[in-house]
């Protein structure tokens, strides 16, 4: 039932509110041209100071989304076997930002302050593998090609888990092949030349799967 006494107020009040807005300056921030200042405790993109990192493994344990896995540095690639308990201090984090929720728990867990919080929030990539960053790339100074990246990331399960799509099983088989190859290399059962040849084959297969990613699959 309409309350007649209050009707003029109920009609005039919304009208007065909207007409006042008409003469105010709009609140819109014209984004690419204008930017808001983010708060000082904003949790943006994560950086890594690779020199400070001691390979303690706390960040991967802290990560609720399991986006962090460990690989070696580029110069240790052929020599360091991470499966060996003695070599744990050589591991460095690779982070899949496609699954990261920027909770910054890894930064809290880091004992040396090598993982750092930055206030950037702008980042664009062309495919989901580019969102997985190698430890050298984590300070945004170096950039690897897709093939180099895949070569390093085959030590981890980040690609099949993060961007595997319907090819996850196929890719996991490749990762297992790769592990066997690496173990053979470190055990000394194959030479470095043989390793290089077999490596190329596996990476070619991996690139073939990656080229199919995101294209969609026709199920018969």
């Amino acid at each position, binding site marked *: 039932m*309409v309350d007649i006494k209050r009707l003029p107020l109920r009609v005039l009040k*919304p*009208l007065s*509110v*909207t*007409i006042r*807005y*008409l003469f*105010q300056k*709009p*609140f*819109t921030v*014209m984004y690419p041209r204008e930017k808001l200042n983010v708060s000082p405790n904003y949790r943006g993109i994560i950086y890594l100071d690779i020199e400070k990192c001691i390979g303690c493994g706390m960040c991967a344990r802290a990560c609720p989304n399991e986006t962090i896995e460990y690989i070696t540095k580029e110069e240790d690639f052929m020599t360091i076997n991470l499966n060996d308990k003695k070599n744990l201090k050589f591991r460095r984090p690779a982070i899949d930002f496609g699954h990261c929720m920027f909770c910054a728990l890894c930064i809290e867990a880091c004992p040396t302050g090598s993982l750092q919080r930055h206030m950037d929030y702008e980042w664009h990539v062309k495919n989901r593998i580019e969102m997985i960053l190698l430890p050298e790339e984590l300070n945004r100074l170096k950039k690897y090609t897709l093939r180099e990246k895949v070569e390093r990331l085959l030590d981890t399960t980040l690609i099949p888990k993060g961007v595997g799509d319907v090819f996850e099983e196929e890719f996991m088989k490749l990762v297992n092949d790769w592990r066997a190859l690496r173990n053979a290399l470190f055990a000394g059962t194959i030479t470095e030349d043989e390793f290089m040849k077999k490596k190329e084959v596996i990476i070619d297969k991996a690139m073939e799967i990656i080229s199919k990613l995101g294209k969609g699959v026709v199920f018969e």
Partner: protein
Amino acid sequence: MSVVNDIYNSVVSQIWAFIIYVLDVIFTLFNLPSWLYDYAIILVKIIILFVLFLVDLLFIVWFERKLLGRFHNRRSVTETGPAGFLQNIADVLKLLVKEDITPKNAKKWIFELAPALLMFILFIPLAVIPFAPGYWLARIPTSLIFVFAVSTIAPSLVLLAGWSSGNKYSMIGGFRAAAQLVAYEVPLALSVLGVIILSGSLDLVEIASMQSNIWFILLQPLGFIAYLISTNVEFERMPFDLPEAESELVVGWRTEYSSIKFGLTMGVEYLHLFVGAALITILYLGGWYGPDFLPPIVWFIIKLHLVILIFVWIRISFPRARIDQVIRLGWRYLIPLSVLNIIITILIAPYIAPFIRGV
């Protein structure tokens, strides 16, 4: 007479003389019969009105979007063209290239015809709306009744469109359009009765020219309020847009329409807006009368767009009413209000008659 007025008059008479000259040349060249001449002139007038109306429609759509934004304290369209003016053209192009879908359950013929017919019906009132002295396509002695009669057909076409879509939401939207029409046809006519009593005519030209001295909004405030609300309901404007009610019925009667047919249904909305604003300008805001320094047509256009601003203001300020509230508002409050307005008008008419002067 001012400078602007003189320039306007000379330019318009030059253009009109040129058009007449071209017509004469065509008629002498092809040896056309002389009885065709009147029809040719009417056709030229129709084309001019149509083109100018389409240009204004582009402006109105942009104007409404921009105003909606500013009433919300945001910026609305900004990127396409200067101040986002070309956004409407982009939207129409997008609608044109979209897939045209007819649902399986639809009654095909009616479904396809309804939006076009709706558009056609709503163009008819433009024929009798006077924009300035001499600026009309047709002058008939009962043009007000004619406009009401024609715009009454629209909701029944909405009902047809909703029914033929074969969708429950469309159908409910159509029913609501019919219910609103039945409830609000009465207050609409009754509230306009005051104006008819004061001006003593059903001719829109006559009604507008009676307001050279004083606008009817000052003599008919109650009638104006009743008429404004009734127009909003009749033309399905926002607080009373129950036939489309996004929060309840998807988009109501236009749910199943896609591609340019949806574009036509949106065009219907802006046609409603234009016709409703033009009628309010003529009936209550003194038509083309204003200070002398601008030509009458310019005053009419300025007033029309101010009325559109008021429509948008009402649209943005109120939440959508429930269907029973809308119907109750019509029967219980607006009809008594407009009857009261008629009684008051009849009582005071002899005393205010000296102020009302025709030209």
